[in-house]
């Protein structure tokens, strides 16, 4: 009997064959936390009485949410993490180096690995063929201290996406469509495994967007087989030796198969205040927008910035709308500076922020006021997430962000392509 990707990776990491529903204690290849969850994780490590961590080279703390810090309390948290890391040999990814999930995808995550992060969007790493999942600070503290975690091996929902993606439709639209179909709890406790010819052609940026939002359907992981596109990504990141084949067995047992015909998709939007309140662009009507936010662990990659820049090239953003752009990592930032993407965005009227989570979690760099409306490329639109509980967040693709910035209302990117 064949195994799903999740079963395969967890079996390899627990030293025995494990199947959906079983509890496994698995070896962790990479463990990380960010500045909002890291201090608690460190305190839990200390509470458990550990003086060191099991694998400091593969233990990271990312200063990404409050970067640079807007409050002294958060600066103290940063210093707490720096001091702990200095003492224990753990790695710190400094302010301005980018969002944890983006940086680990560039530098660390390998196909077939188990990756545990104290951030729900750790599942982004599934795009590279890893079993990458988010956990709370205590679970991550244990993963750091002991190099292992207990997991229930998830049942897998297989998502088959086939057909040519229409112009103006991207990975973001695929995942929003899926969440609209199965709901924000549609994959709770389960793995989503993405496959089909559309997925096979999708570049790594698009796969990461989809994997990132797997958790928005409640999933533990969103996995992809590693293939030539994965290999190209690792080559581009200067890590050719990190490639490994990571695929499910052809006769794996799935709980269910969900089919998506990519040809029927159109630009898709999640409406306030819940990620499964899904509308297509044709259903959305007129929604005036105060702020457009491009970036985050969901859509802060070079490809995303380029798509928006292509739409905004030679145009100006709407006078009543501000557009904020936050590259996902320093590498993305440098590449977008070198190829002129940043220049195009700034000339059109966008503001740029240092690499990091930026405005996504309502801390700084674009906090929404009462009644304000934002079209964001981030993965989440809960009430009050970006500031006032009386503000409204709509989620869409980077292309939609570009079109919306021009028109000052949620706009169809297909007109500009």
């Amino acid at each position, binding site marked *: 009997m064949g195994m799903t990707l999740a079963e395969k990776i967890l079996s390899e990491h627990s030293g025995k064959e494990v199947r959906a529903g079983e*509890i496994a204690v698995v070896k962790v290849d990479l463990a990380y936390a960010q500045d909002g969850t890291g201090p608690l994780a460190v305190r839990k490590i200390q509470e458990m*009485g550990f003086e060191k961590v099991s694998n400091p080279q593969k233990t990271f703390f990312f200063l990404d949410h409050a970067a640079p810090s807007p409050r002294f*309390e958060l600066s103290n948290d940063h210093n707490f993490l720096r001091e702990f890391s200095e003492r224990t040999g753990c790695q710190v990814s400094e302010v301005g180096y980018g969002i944890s999930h983006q940086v680990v995808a560039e530098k660390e995550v390998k196909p077939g690995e188990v990756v545990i992060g104290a951030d729900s969007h750790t599942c982004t790493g599934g795009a590279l063929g890893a079993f990458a999942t988010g956990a*709370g600070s205590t*679970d991550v503290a244990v993963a750091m201290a002991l190099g292992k975690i207990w997991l*229930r091996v998830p049942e897998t929902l297989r998502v088959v996406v086939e057909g040519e993606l229409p112009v103006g439709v991207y990975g973001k639209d695929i995942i929003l469509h899926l969440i609209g179909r199965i709901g924000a709890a549609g994959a709770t406790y389960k793995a989503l495994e993405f496959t089909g010819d559309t997925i096979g052609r999708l570049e790594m940026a698009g796969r990461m967007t989809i994997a990132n939002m797997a958790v928005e359907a409640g999933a533990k992981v969103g996995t992809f087989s590693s293939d030539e596109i994965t290999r190209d990504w690792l080559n581009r990141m200067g890590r050719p030796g990190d490639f490994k084949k990571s695929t499910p067995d052809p006769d794996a047992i799935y709980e269910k198969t969900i089919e998506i015909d990519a040809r029927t998709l159109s630009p898709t939007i999640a409406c306030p205040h819940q990620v499964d309140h899904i509308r297509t662009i044709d259903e959305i009507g007129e929604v005036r927008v105060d702020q457009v936010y491009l970036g985050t662990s969901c859509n802060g990659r070079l490809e995303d910035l380029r798509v928006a820049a292509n739409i905004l090239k030679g145009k100006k953003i709407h006078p009543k709308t501000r557009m904020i752009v936050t590259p996902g990592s320093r590498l993305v930032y440098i590449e977008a500076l070198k190829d002129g993407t940043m220049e195009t965005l700034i000339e059109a009227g966008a503001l740029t922020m240092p690499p990091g989570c930026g405005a996504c979690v309502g801390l700084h760099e674009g906090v929404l006021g009462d009644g304000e409306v934002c079209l964001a490329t981030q993965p989440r639109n809960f009430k009050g*997430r970006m500031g006032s509980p009386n503000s409204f967040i709509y989620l869409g693709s980077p292309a939609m962000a570009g079109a919306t910035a021009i028109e000052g209302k949620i706009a169809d990117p297909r007109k500009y392509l």
Partner: protein
Amino acid sequence: MKGRVWKFGDAISTDHIIPGRYFYLRSNLPELSKHIMEYERPDFSGEVSHGDFIVAGENFGQGSSREHAAIVIKMNGIQAVLAKSFARIFYRNCFNNGLPAVICDTEKFGEGDVLELFLEEGRIVNYSRDETVSFLPLPPVMKQILSDGGLVEHVKKYGNIRLDF
């Protein structure tokens, strides 16, 4: 221990439980815990009493992995969270902090009802309605973590993870 029901709806996220804008208070848990659920019920922290229950609908605790959500519930003296379903990370976080999260038919509880939870026996007595609601037993792993007093205590006790069921 008996406690009162505080009822919430479906899809309560960790952002509802403890808003992201209090990020800067995460190293100051007593201050942070005052802001529990404040968009849903201003001054919830002031009104809730030790031993009360949070009762909700589907997908309670969805969203961010912030364990602070489970911690502030515990710090406000809530004895258990009862919901029709829970988001995955939040569910683990509860047990890791010694807070029971029970999946049951919460339609049977109304605001202010007085309940008593019998965790081992899988039932909840609703004194206000003179009714008993039973629920499926907790998964053995969760039971063990809870009886050890949370995951930190578990690891302190065994020096390891001892949960191979």
